[in-house]
């Protein structure tokens, strides 16, 4: 259907741009990103540094794949996995009352974790799941 196509491409490009945009400041300031990860108090200092080196590049790569439509099955799954992990991180920080920066799009005061951030992540996860459904639904139709 036409609206499904519109939604599919909208979500793909939307998530693609979002991932590229959010990875940019992490790539530029890896130590700050490592510190932001450490503040969630799940990973230690050493592992946070590995994640800070790895995640921004996986984000930017996934973002480009979503926009270009290459390896789309893997890209939409990684995208949804990102959204799930972000939701879990933000959720646990919110419920543990950690007054920390989210580190999602920038390292500033405005990015502190509030209920709105939690809802935003929940919305992104739902959209990511929707994109998976639309992608695999499309692939099945094409295969038939």
């Amino acid at each position: 259907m036409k609206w499904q196509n519109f939604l599919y491409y909208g979500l793909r490009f939307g998530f693609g741009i979002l991932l590229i945009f959010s990875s940019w400041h992490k790539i530029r300031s890896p130590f700050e990103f490592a510190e932001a990860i450490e503040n969630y108090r799940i990973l230690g200092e050493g592992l946070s540094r590995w994640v800070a080196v790895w995640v921004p590049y996986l984000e930017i790569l996934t973002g480009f794949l979503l926009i270009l439509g290459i390896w789309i099955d893997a890209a939409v799954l990684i995208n949804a996995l990102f959204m799930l992990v972000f939701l879990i991180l933000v959720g646990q920080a919110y419920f543990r009352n950690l007054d920390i920066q989210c580190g999602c799009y920038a390292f500033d005061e405005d990015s502190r974790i509030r209920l709105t951030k939690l809802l935003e992540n929940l919305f992104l996860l739902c959209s990511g799941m929707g994109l998976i459904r639309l992608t695999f639904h499309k692939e099945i139709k094409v295969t038939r």
Partner: protein
Amino acid sequence: MSTLFRIAVLGCVSLIIGVGVNQFIHQGIRIPILLLALPRTENTVDLKSISVHEAYGLLLNNGPCFIDIRPKIEFEIDHIPGALSIPFNQHYGQANLLETGKKDEIVVVYGFEPSNQEAELLAEQLTEQGFNQTRILQDGFAGWIENGYPLETGKDTER
């Protein structure tokens, strides 16, 4: 190609790119710092420490070479007079941390907190590079401030 295989490939490729790019960008997380996360064998270097009072005494008598391992931005706010800025995040793992002329001098390494692990690692590295008089400032920069010893602001001179 299965989806899982593609995910694994993307994961590996992004890790390789990430580690590679970080070796070259300004303020990147270099390999020696990444390796600190891995279990390491006990170091055989026997590190000596020095109290802030002793260090202040030395400062009054022509002074040891103080090394501040905090980020540059913190160093520029305040530091021990005459200290050199060698931020751990940028310099750990580098060859020739200090000019060889200082090999016979007492070198005092400090971070902010007492028993700073990063200060210990940098001091270990300096000792391995032949700076045998390397010491760690026992109470760190925090102890120096607490005791009301003099401070300096601004950038350091070149190493």
